[in-house]
């Protein structure tokens, strides 16, 4: 049996209430999701995030929204991203004709170098930072650095917080004070609804107005909307899962470290590791454990492994041990 730990999903299924709600949403799928259903979804998200509905925009997954935002702002000026960053962010930005500046995380600390970032951000139309960062797992921004970037750029700061529930930290409330801040989040990670593709963003009304023409096209499906509302009523379930993932992550981290693997600290549901083996991801694949291969950004000794159930993690650890024992 193949163990897939390459997409940073949650390994636990949603509670029955969420499945039931999705089923209810299915009953009306001859219709598009109505404005009222979307309003209910926004209201639930507003309650969860602690910000007013006027600040919220919902979308069928964050990925597509990130692409749209980058394309939208690229018409106004240059884009700044970090390196490495979530693959989709990099590829969309690279495909554009506008100026692209990447600011590389320092090695080996993987810290975000603020000074060059601020310098590049100054005249940019859009600065995109995924924090916690994929693939490093590192929380890159605190409130202070977020404030600094917002105040020094004449453009927009987009913080992708897809993994914020694992980090237990967010700057989403700062959209109330900074009209050039966008925060994106997803139901795909800690809430475990990846297959439903629901994401959302929070931003000041001016920014949202720019997106209004896309609002209908990006709406989530009806079953997704219903399921999300139900999931947001059961925050405890999500929190328990996030805590479980955190506990497992530390266990996997300790076990891999004990094998001599260099494990980077993570605020997410995945771990970046540097092994002693070249082509480590491929060797794990030969043992039917699929991890993400970040070899276009690091050497082929690196792997990014998602945290699964304790059983899945044990399968990964024993495969890792076998790979490390190869000559």
């Amino acid at each position: 049996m193949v163990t897939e730990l390459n997409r940073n999903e949650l390994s636990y299924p949603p509670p029955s209430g969420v499945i039931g709600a999705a089923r209810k949403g299915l009953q009306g799928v001859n219709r598009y999701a109505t404005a009222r259903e979307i309003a209910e979804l926004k209201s639930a998200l507003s309650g969860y995030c602690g910000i007013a509905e006027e600040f919220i925009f919902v979308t069928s997954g964050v990925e597509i929204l990130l692409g749209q935002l980058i394309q939208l702002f690229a018409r106004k000026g240059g884009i700044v991203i970090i390196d490495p960053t979530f693959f989709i962010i990099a590829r969309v930005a690279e495909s554009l004709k506008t100026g692209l500046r990447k600011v590389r995380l320092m090695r080996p600390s993987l810290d975000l170098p603020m000074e060059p970032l601020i310098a590049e951000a100054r005249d940019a139309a859009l600065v995109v930072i995924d924090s916690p960062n994929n693939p490093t797992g590192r929380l890159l921004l605190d409130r202070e650095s977020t404030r600094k970037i917002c105040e020094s750029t004449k453009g927009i700061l987009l913080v992708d917080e897809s993994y914020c529930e694992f980090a237990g930290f967010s700057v989403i409330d700062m959209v109330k004070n900074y009209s050039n801040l966008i925060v994106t989040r997803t139901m795909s990670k800690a809430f475990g609804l990846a297959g439903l593709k629901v994401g959302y963003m929070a931003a000041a009304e001016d920014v949202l107005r720019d997106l209004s023409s896309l609002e209908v096209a990006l709406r989530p499906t009806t079953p997704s909307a219903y399921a999300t509302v139900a999931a947001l009523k059961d925050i405890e379930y999500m929190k328990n899962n996030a805590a479980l993932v955190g506990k497992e992550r530390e266990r996997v981290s300790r076990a891999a470290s004990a094998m001599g693997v260099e494990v980077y600290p993570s605020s997410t549901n995945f771990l970046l590791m540097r092994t002693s083996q070249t082509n480590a991801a491929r060797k794990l694949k030969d043992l039917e454990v699929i991890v993400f291969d970040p070899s276009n950004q690091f050497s082929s000794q690196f792997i990014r492994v998602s945290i699964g159930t304790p059983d899945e993690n044990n399968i990964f650890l024993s495969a890792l041990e076998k790979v490390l024992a190869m000559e």
Partner: protein
Amino acid sequence: MAKRIGLIVNPIAGMGGSVGLKGTDGKMYPKAVELGAEPVTAARAKAFLSHLKLKDKSAFSVAPGGMGEDIARDAGIKFTVVSSLSGRKTSADDTRRIGREMSNKVDLLVFVGGDGTARDVYDAVGLKIPVIGVPSGVKMFGAVFAVNAIAAAEIVDAFIEGNAAISEKEVMDINEEAYREGRLESKLYGYLMVPEVAGLVQSGKEATTYSESSHENQEAIARYIIEGMLADTLYLLGAGSTTTAIAEGLKVRKTLLGVDAIHNNRVVAENLNEKGILELLKHHNKVKIIISPIGGNGFIFGRGNQEFSPAVLKLIEKDDIIVVATRDKINRAASLRVDTNDARIDKKLKGFMRVVTHYNEEVVVEVV
């Protein structure tokens, strides 16, 4: 069809290391033997062959005697022998001669040796066929080597299966005399086509590799650089294939392995050494250097590009140094590096630098 794999072993490479000689180039070989050095390449070659999984899917052509044949026989693989040896002792001439012969007969050439062997192989095959080095020398600063014999086997397996990506990698020329005295002086000697295991194509949404070839990437860099070029400014183009792409874009000649000077889109000096550069600098006050990291580990000054000596760099502002590198190349180097033997110059260059990686695309990288 079975892939044809060539194997050339330099039996004396790496022997200097154990007796502290830092290489067996030139006249050092008899000295190494006198000091009791043991051959090491045979063991590396054997390790490489024994880790190869797809031996049966390939046809081996090996160099004669101690340059391959003996080891291949020990390893129990099927092979044909290419050429014969001129005398009892093998030499660089043998490597070059056999390499040339193999370049018409194999799909991939594997050599076991060090930087010196890599240069001999380059002399023989150039960019005609892909080449991978199994590291066994004392100095291996070039990027044409696998990390070790096992990694080399993985790469060759991937090549046989058609899962290897091929790119040009630098062959370095290290001044062995200087190295023995504890200094590292190196320059770019040439390029070989080197296969590497391509990033895993992932199931699902996260595919990771670039679809563009490194040459297309270099052309995009060149277009961007050329558009930004200023009139009445002297551009000193360093060695390498990326800077050469810039010259091609300007439709002027470029010395692949040396520094050329361009002024108002015309070449004003070719293959400059330090002295020549200093002379030119006397007559120009607007000067920019365009260079690419050399050696596979991010070095911009100090390993390769040695024409840009501390005396030259003293006269150039950091902002007037333009670094260019393909996305792939910069992704592979964790940082940019300088080691000019002049602490003040190193200090001036350290901090952060932008690297042009595509058309209007730059990455800010730390210089260490």
